[in-house]
């Protein structure tokens, strides 16, 4: 299971097993989506599979995730998603009404994101071989001229901006999956980020890299960027927006909000001279109201992410190994 957690084990599986087996220069870039050139047109192309229990959770459903997740992967290349494919894997015995609710949620999310489901597929597996519904989506979109979002473009001095409060999706899922209640209702932040990215690119097409910190959380995304760019990253813990309910839930369970999954947030590395204008534009967008500068890229400690603690100490923020495990006491 650890290999699916979005941490070090996931990265090793992709880098050491899949990438060598499949070959190809495009795949070797290991971005959230692949940047392609086809007939002189620059395309972003991405696929993701969605496995979540329960299928419906506070703030969304597997249908919303299946659209927003892939739309966001494309958005991290600067592309507006144009078309999606959609593959349903249904477990024998799942109620048709459940499938219908998922499909309706998926359709509504697609319309909201301005993307069309253009092709699809359905398979049914035997009872006991699935969690009701699995969905795979793939998407394509155009990358605007002048936009080149890659971790290799990050340079020391870049400002790190996160688009809002972190940890909501992971805590919302835990609250319903494990029967935990935290005194406050926490809803998933599941949302399509294409509009927010377009707003940011309108300020400057010269953003260096974008990532949506899903599994493995903000810590995993920052580590991926640090490793791929060869720069160090310093964040200031006190500046990372963590909602009270998420902070409390994490404190109770012994988890670190930096590692908790998000489904509607992005982290951006922005040239310092554009940072203020980009931040202002983000805060004017509904999905960027709580955007905050949380740190910067540095030349020291290449490949490592370091947090300055609220008290003035420092610590390494490592790539998680697999899923975080709740503590005993």
């Amino acid at each position, binding site marked *: *299971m*650890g290999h699916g957690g979005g941490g*070090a084990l996931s990265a090793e599986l992709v880098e050491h097993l899949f990438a060598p087996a499949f070959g190809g220069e495009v795949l070797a870039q290991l971005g959230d989506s692949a940047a392609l050139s086809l007939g002189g047109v620059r395309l972003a192309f991405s696929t993701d599979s969605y496995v979540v229990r329960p299928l419906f959770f506070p703030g969304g459903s597997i249908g919303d995730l299946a659209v927003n997740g892939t739309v966001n992967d494309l958005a991290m290349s600067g592309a507006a998603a144009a078309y999606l494919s959609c593959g349903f894997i249904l477990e024998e015995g799942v109620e048709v009404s459940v499938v219908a609710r998922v499909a309706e949620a998926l359709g509504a999310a697609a319309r909201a994101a301005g993307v069309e489901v253009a092709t699809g597929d359905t398979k049914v597996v035997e009872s006991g071989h699935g969690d009701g519904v699995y969905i795979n989506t793939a998407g394509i979109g155009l990358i605007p001229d002048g936009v080149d979002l890659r971790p290799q473009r990050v340079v*020391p001095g870049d*400002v790190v901006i996160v688009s809002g409060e972190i940890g909501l999706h992971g805590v919302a899922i835990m609250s319903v999956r*494990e029967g*935990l209640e935290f005194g406050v209702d926490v809803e998933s932040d599941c949302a399509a980020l294409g509009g927010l990215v377009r707003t940011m690119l309108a300020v400057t097409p010269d953003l260096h890299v974008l990532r949506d910190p899903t599994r493995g959380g903000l810590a995993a995304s920052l580590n991926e960027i640090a490793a791929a760019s060869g720069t*160090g990253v*310093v964040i*200031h813990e*006190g500046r990372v927006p963590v909602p*009270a309910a998420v*902070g*409390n839930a994490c*404190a109770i*369970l*012994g988890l670190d909000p930096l590692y908790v999954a998000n489904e509607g947030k992005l982290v951006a590395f922005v040239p310092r001279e554009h940072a203020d204008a980009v931040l202002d534009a983000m805060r004017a967008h509904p999905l960027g109201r709580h955007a905050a*500068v949380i*740190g*910067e890229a*540095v*030349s*020291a*400690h290449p490949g*490592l992410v*370091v947090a*300055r*603690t*609220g*008290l*003035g*100490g*420092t*610590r*390494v923020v*490592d790539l998680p*190994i697999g899923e975080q*495990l*709740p*503590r*005993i*006491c």
Partner: protein
Amino acid sequence: MKYIDEFQDPELARRLLDDIHATVTRPWALMEVCGGQTHTIIRHGIDQLLPEQVELIHGPGCPVCVTPLEVIDKALEIASRPDVIFCSFGDMLRVPGTGRDLFQVRSEGGDVRVVYSPLDALRIAQDNPGREVVFFGIGFETTAPPNAMTVYQAKKLGIRNFSLLVSHVRVPPAIEAIMRSPSCRVQGFLAAGHVCSVMGVGEYPELAARHRVPIVVTGFEPLDILEGVRRAVRQLERGEHTVDNAYARAVRPEGNPAALAMLEDVFEVTDRAWRGIGVIPDSGWRLSARYREYDAEHRFSVTGIKTLEPAECRSGEVLQGLLKPHECEAFGTLCTPRSPLGATMVSSEGACAAYYLYRRLELTPATTAVSPEASPVA
């Protein structure tokens, strides 16, 4: 964040630090007993902010770390049985037994489940009357009462398919063992606040007097730790050695009478082995005779287990405060959270894990320290 932010306030922390700096005149070695305190210290960089004369020594209080390899192997054997649903807190799943861990048992088909309360395991037993449900009952005085309550409930409700694999340990005998060690350097203790919230402080005055060490009952947030250090250092500078409760918001001197009654009913004190340390007299609990039928070791007859500790692992010395994690030759090379030799590297409260996760920057010679350019941005 109510009840959390208040105890992480940088301005209040600065005041406490200033007081500690002003008080200290010579070197002192304090042991924080609990692994949760160790992680707060390392995660927030508290040890970097204290005066050089104040050394924090990490104690044996990580329940995952001190669970003997033999017990882990028993858990692995029981969890592998097809008729068993094995329930555990999450952080036991990655702890290496001899050759494998509970995650591996699960990947091989074992029904291993993470629960957040032992009562969840009891509910699973009620829902699965045809299967044996075992809960992995480890930990200190903090986790023992709910586990005792669960066994009490099982008996009261007549649930026969539930049992406890028990490896509970007690803090005061461990402090006694540390102080008796000829190589002990500890001059004062930050006692674990959550343990005292259950047990009270009644066991500590005699320890403090006998070994002439201040014992300050301390919480787990950064300000709790700093206040604990401040009070311990003050006592040391004055030549005092009393028990001081710096965690009064959670700890009453008499502890929690209901929890104590439950412990007394269900458990009895016994000698216990501590991983990496050895057997400490009267340092553990086992199920009392009235509840012996709920003991998983008896029910599954897991005997004849031969354990093999990796020779390179020096976690026992780390747990006794005799060695800092990075002073172990295997640290960060042979032993990492990915391929741990000992539980101290894999437990979320383990001192080795804390150093590896948070301190690699200073401990890895190849990297440089945080440069001035890593200053706060506007």
